[in-house]
């Protein structure tokens, strides 16, 4: 996955968790939960989906790395380098 694809992957996961949220125009550097309705349970779902779809483990101490789209891409980029993007599952 390229860096852009990592962002796509994250957005696709958020879309399944929070279908009512508008994801177009999100500021990548701002905290996600300051822009859309995401609670701590939703972040847990993101972690579970990442494991299920891409086989990536995010340990509890790293949950904070998922705060914004930019920090997601920074953190997940290296882990997803050799993994293919899957969208719409």
């Amino acid at each position, binding site marked *: 996955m390229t860096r852009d694809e990592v962002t796509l992957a994250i957005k696709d996961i958020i879309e399944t968790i929070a279908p009512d949220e508008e994801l177009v125009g999100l500021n990548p550097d701002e905290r996600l939960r300051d822009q859309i309705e995401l609670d701590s*349970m939703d972040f*847990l*779902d993101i*972690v*579970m989906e990442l*494991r*299920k779809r891409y*086989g990536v*483990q995010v340990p509890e101490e790293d949950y904070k790395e998922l705060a914004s789209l930019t920090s997601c891409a920074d953190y997940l980029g290296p882990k997803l380098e050799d993994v293919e993007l899957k969208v719409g599952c």
Partner: protein
Amino acid sequence: MTSDNINPDGKSVSRPWGSRHGRIPQKKDFLEGVKAEYDVVVIGSGLAGMTAANILGRNGQRVLLLEQHFKIGGLATWFKRPGGHIFDVSLHGFPVGMKKTCRKYWSQEIADKIVPLDKVTFDNPQFSFDTTFTREDFTEKLVTQFDLDREMVEGFFAHLRKMDFFDDSNLTTGELFEEFFPGRNDVHRLLMEPISYANGSNLDEPAITYGIVFSNFMSKGVYTFVGGTDVLISAMRAELLKNGVDIRTRVQVEKIQVEYGSDGKPHVAGVVANAGAATHTIRSSAVLSNANLKTTILKLVDEEHFRPEFVAEAKAVRLNNSSCQVYMGIRAGESIPFLTDLLFTSTRTKFQSHSLSDLHGESRTFSFYYPKGRPEMKEERYTIVASTNARYADWADMTDEEYESNKRQLCEETLSHLETYLPEVRSKVDYIEASTPRSFEFYTQHQGGSSFGTKFEGLAPSMNLHLELGGLFHAGSVGIIMSGWLGAANYGVIQANKVDSYLFQLQQTQNATS
């Protein structure tokens, strides 16, 4: 809930089994055809156990869900009685968050049937009014009816919303109330009573538990599931089966088996389960217990597998209190007018937190179930369920005669109380029955009939269980905040994520070595 019912004429009808007579012996093997091995065995099908099992099944794990009762659902349950009555045990109302939780972890169809109650009412010697049960309405009431300063009230709610785990847990809820609303017993009553009924807590709990629960619960109304608990649980069962979960009821787990790895550390190896005609040993990489926390640590696992400090910590955990309920069925063909959906009522002049659990106390909630709650039923039926908090110790040592007469008294007091709101009701009730802490103990196997899990200190050993014994996890009512429908279901999700992570790690290691 109980096996004994008392007819309005005062005659009691006994059946040869129940809370005082033990269980019906089973002749069948309820684990017939069970597999020798699963990824995870879930012990108990309360909302936490079921929700966790559903997520793990959906994630492709091989899940066996074991339930000792003949129905799944735990306290999310119902029962039928002669006269065509269906009584819901705990469908009184839950926070709006349940809608999102059901959509994400169950199905859109289940979530779509979650609707707000039309009316919630308070009535006691200090205040009487209807409320939408929202933060806005509570603010309005506190300002206009209790003459409090608006800024003070808004400041209090803002303070509650900011509270989390990391705050000082020495401050009690009572102290917090006293700080914001000194000497205002009426305000304390309004703020505490609904929460006490919702999770068994009182003014002595850490204030952070109050802050977290209040912000979830007393903020956006009270919700229920249209169709009745039976419809909900059958939809959940269908979802579990669709996700490949092997569900077995009437199966009593006797032991969680433990083995030691090459590193000398213990991990779970499976369970020993009594399934009636046969006892089975089933292997599994993980076990998620939805049994009571203390039962899980002190009974299902042999003590030698834990550090003595951990056993001591578990022993020191206090159980939360229990409940009494009175179920009243309106005769077929009769009706009652719409009064309210949920009524918090008391004849006690002043609020005293602990008196909510008194034997024959003056405070109770009435949940009114009208035909609108079961639109698919052919007949229009009405039931009323009264609930109070209760202390197990008050009921535990009664003789059969005392037990019988105390239940009868409870039924009579409840019916008289109800008559003050519905004068005609006595003549319309053709079925009345009481459940007590002993009934809760019998049906759920929770020590002390605990209907709200444990006090706050139960949270740490529940969350840390897998660190003590590899592959063993706990989900269920604990720590006051993980209690009630939403708390239990969400805690099931939190722990399912941990189980899933543990199994994933294990499967990765196995793939690497094979």
